[in-house]
């Protein structure tokens, strides 16, 4: 377990954490403000990646593809909001879960119909294709650093937006007591739409940024959605700050756990049982972490007052 390898894995963990934050931020805002549990948030991440691949095929430029894909994802998200989601805000969570599950089934298979089941790829933008040298000659791809940086910038921007602007104030007020905000004369439906559209774009952005280093395939949003749930449950539903802290925590614990569990277990048992138990324990880690956090603080690390 050398120092450089550790550093590489920490960076990978941060990159996963940032990605989780981008997805969890939208999820937690939508839930906090609208009390709406949106399982279809993960497929919006997937859709972002697919749209980026599709637009890249047309325009051949990553930046242009990014902008076009974001706009298309936003448009599609708002269409979904108009057709389905807005009729569910007043319903109970069970209805919301089932309807958004239906949308997951639809979209996961719709992309299969349109783009086929085979994984697609998106090239890393040329300017960022290189690697940087970490200490003693270990190389690290620049694009992963770009993902981390863009995530941190967005997190900071989001924090500023929520803390210091009028719309941010309304969002915070909405998360605390949506009915009161509405009674004070704020057009709550429009606020919902803005928050929802924003969340959709964040998820799509995450999907576009990660597309160059993973394969774009149907169902890619499903597992990340559950990780995002773990993040917002640990962070406290509705809390951006909590989502950020919990996302980095989960990203690091999961990545480091998977990389080093076998090495650590070797200290207390033979190599062959360690190889057998290690992966199982590594995959349990974040859920055990979640269980412990919830056992001590059932409302998460940063509970919001409203819920």
């Amino acid at each position, binding site marked *: 377990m050398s120092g450089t390898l550790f550093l590489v894995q920490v960076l990978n963990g941060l990159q996963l954490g940032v990605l989780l934050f981008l997805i969890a931020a939208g999820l937690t805002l939508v839930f906090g403000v609208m009390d709406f549990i949106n399982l279809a948030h993960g497929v919006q991440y997937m859709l972002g990646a697919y749209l980026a691949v599709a637009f890249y095929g047309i325009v051949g430029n990553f930046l242009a593809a990014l902008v076009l894909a974001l706009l298309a994802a936003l448009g599609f998200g708002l269409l979904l909001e108009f057709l389905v989601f807005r009729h569910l805000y007043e319903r109970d969570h069970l209805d919301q879960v089932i309807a958004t599950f*239906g*949308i997951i089934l639809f979209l996961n298979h719709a992309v299969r119909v349109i783009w086929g089941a085979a994984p697609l790829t998106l090239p890393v933008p040329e300017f960022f294709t290189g690697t940087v040298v970490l200490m003693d000659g270990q190389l690290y791809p620049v694009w992963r650093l770009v993902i981390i940086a863009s995530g941190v910038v967005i997190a900071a921007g989001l924090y500023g937006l929520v803390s210091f602007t009028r719309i941010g104030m309304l969002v915070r007020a909405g998360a605390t007591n949506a009915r009161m905000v509405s009674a004070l004369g704020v057009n709550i439906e429009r606020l919902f739409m803005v928050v929802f559209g924003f969340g959709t774009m964040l998820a799509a952005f995450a999907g576009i940024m990660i597309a160059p280093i993973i394969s774009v395939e149907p169902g890619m949003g499903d597992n990340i959605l559950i990780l995002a749930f773990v993040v917002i449950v640990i962070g406290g539903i509705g809390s951006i700050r909590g989502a950020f802290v919990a996302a980095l925590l989960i990203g690091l614990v999961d990545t480091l756990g998977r990389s080093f569990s076998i090495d650590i277990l070797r200290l207390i048992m033979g190599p062959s049982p360690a190889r057998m138990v290690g992966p199982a324990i590594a995959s349990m880690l974040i859920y055990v972490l979640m269980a412990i956090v919830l056992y001590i603080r059932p409302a998460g690390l940063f509970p919001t007052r409203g819920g």
Partner: protein
Amino acid sequence: MTGALLAAEGGVRALRPTRDVVLATLMFLVFALLPLFASLAAKQYLLDIGARMMVFAVAAVALDLLVGYAGLISFGHAAFVGLGAYAVGILSAHGIDDALISLPVAIAVSMLFAWLTGIVCLRTKGAYFIMITLAFGQMVYFIATSLAPYGGDNGLTVAARNTIAGWPLLKSDRAFYYFTLLCLLATYLFCRVLVVSRFGRVLRGTKENATRMATIGFDTRRFQLVAYVIAGGLGGFSGFLLANLTEFVSPAYMSWQQSGELIVMVILGGVGTLDGAIIGSAAYLIAEEWLSGFTENWKVIFGPILVLVVLFARGGLIGLASRLWRRSGHA
């Protein structure tokens, strides 16, 4: 009293006791006669579909106990099914393939898992509960995929169907079908008795208003935990049947999509009725069979149907049927 309580729950119309009995009798009669029809029409694949309907119905009835009566939306129910199935698979890999051992183990493992996770899950409410059960389900899924000695991602084949006390009673498909029917009937009757018992009334009362029940003096969380453990055990029961039906065990049994599909079955039939869970699992598998005849990606069609059911057909198939029944003058 019971009728008023039921009617107040989520707009599902209470069925009169007599109609309840009629519906249940009809359902089980259809299941009992299906093999006869299958052999007359020379469509043996119906036997397999029927058995699968009943296996999932066992899990769905248990889930309805949680969702419909206790108000606990568990999104990790497939984990229990998977645990039960893996109990059969792993025991069989070590040469133990008698139901007298594997069935109790399957149920006990699922109940233990339900108890351990239930303690944590039930500290939370509402959406938190949904997300946490989802996460724990996913945990079991990932553990199963990392179990390299037992097939990992690929799952493992069960050498043969379980024997009962050494006798290969379940070997023929028809015998297994009727065994499954018996299991479903037992599950159904057990849950029926449970929901009208004092225990069931406390659960329903807690669903309506937890504070009120706590004020009366009930330890509501303990009742919910017991319900969660029972439902978990029945999930394991269903897993035992599933492993024996397919003679194969795979992590896919406990994927979160599978959990979602179980909830869909409960909703599709009509939540909080128990009959609905059985009708729902049958309807789901029929839809799968029928729609996949048009396209391999049949969920492209099924997904929007689901959205429409939620938006326009509350109460599921049973709710729809009882509305039609009333409209035709049988008020």
